[in-house]
């Protein structure tokens, strides 16, 4: 089993867009290591020829018919920084 280190947590936090504090990094490394060590029992289960089960239900598709969605201004009502009918975010390119 791979040991979870602070470096592992840093890598995963980057993937998850989480800026963790130093304290959180060490705490999570220790706790995740414990949790994964305990979940290690799954590795011993014989799963050969078992198809993974992603969800317990199949759901149902509806007809693809035209319907109105949420009006733009209502959707923007909840945004922390709407501008000119759009969601404004910090600069991504250049600057």
């Amino acid at each position: 089993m791979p040991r979870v280190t602070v470096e592992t947590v840093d890598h995963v936090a980057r993937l998850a867009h989480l800026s963790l504090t130093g304290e959180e990094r060490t705490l999570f490394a220790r706790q995740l290591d414990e949790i994964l060590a305990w979940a290690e029992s799954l590795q011993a289960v014989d799963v050969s020829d078992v198809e993974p089960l992603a969800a317990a239900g199949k759901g149902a598709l509806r007809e693809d018919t035209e319907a109105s969605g949420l009006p733009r201004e209502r959707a923007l009502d909840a945004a922390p920084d709407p501008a000119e009918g759009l969601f404004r975010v910090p600069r991504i390119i250049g600057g």
Partner: protein
Amino acid sequence: MSGLVGLGAQALRQRVAGRDVSSEEVARAHLDAIEAVEPSLDAFLAVLADRALERARALDRRLGKGEKAPPLAGVPIAVKDVLHIEGLPTTCGSRILEGYRPPFTATAVARLEAAGAIVVGKTNMDEFAMGSSTENSAFKPTRNPWDVGRVPGGSSGGSAAAVAARLAPLALGSDTGGSIRQPAAFCGVVGLKPTYGRVSRYGLVAFGSSLDQVGPFGRTVGDVALAAALLFGADPLDATSVDGPAGDPGSALGRGASALRIGVPRGFLEKGVEAQTLARFDEAVAALGKAGATIVDVDLPHLVHAVATYYLVATAEASSNLARYDGVRYGRRAGGPSDLRSMYGRTRDEGFGPEVKRRIILGTFALSSGYYDAYYLRAQKVRALIRRDFDRAFAACDAVATPTTPAPAFRLGEKTSDPLQMYLEDIFTVPANLAGLPALSLPCGFASGLPVGLQLLARPFDEETLLRAGAAYQARTGHHEATPPLCAA
């Protein structure tokens, strides 16, 4: 409290329908009860007094004009703050949704309101429904009405506590790994997690999309069946919702438990169940036997892996679902950062509490390159084996019985520092979510003065069997009539 508080949904509806009392009087009595008890309970994140009274008066006007009383006419309900009501804040127990007011209403809430129910408030919960104690709420912990030094369970702890303390006869919760049934057990009320797909999740904040289900709390199986009948059914706004095989939960109630075969997985109960809890469970199974059910042994060999499987699957799904909280489209945005990546990272670090971050990290890890096969994919395979266990068990029985939890309500703070101990609380509840089965928890007595829950699980879309067995049990026992020390009635 004019004798209205403490009545069940069916009794209240009957009195409102008979114009014996007004819907406004019923709402007012429950709002007064909330005002009196809430300071010691902390079950609500928002009390919707004005809205409730306004809606109650509108219902009274319609009834005054001779309109037929709908099935929940004037019945107060509490709604877990994971379900949207248009224009009112949804916090989901989190700081990251600060200021968010959804522009639409959850189908489950809309259906109960259309049936005449009056929402009295939004209830407290573990942040994003992640937790088994309601201590992970970003705002406050909720107390257990049976002992205010103990947790009400979670994540729907506010809804369960409100129903137990007689602040509403019915409540809505959500259940991803036990979040309806475990608090129902801890608070001594009835909680139903319907079959995966039975109830629309439109307007439910997503946690684990292959596991989440909306369901009702009540004090009697009859009241829960009444709410279930209104909640069940496909919704074009949720592609995972389906119309199950016809079933009228209400009509099942009178049919008793005779001819039902109830399976007990003895091997699975052997370890880790507190002695008094196990004794109450055995008595409950014996009572079902006296009610006419046949008790059989069943074997569910892969259930020992259910908690590990669940915590890999659920956190993987959560890490994906919670990616949407990025400070762009709704909720809170961290001030300061001038570049996008830092804005995302800071927003999420400031907005999420420790348990949510822990689960995002675990789930992202389980899905990440190099670990996906060993963790997420393997967990999905073990999940298939767990469902196969149930398929086999249901060849020999109509319902499986277990305790809902290994022990009664624990003390506030007792398990907060050890997440693994908290996760192990879910051993009996997560299997139903993994296999998509309906499951019911109902009060079956007390262990050292604290309520114990009996859990029944059935085949997909066979809630009828659960409600039949539950009603037969409650017809022979009085545990559901016990009132907690902290109670409005």
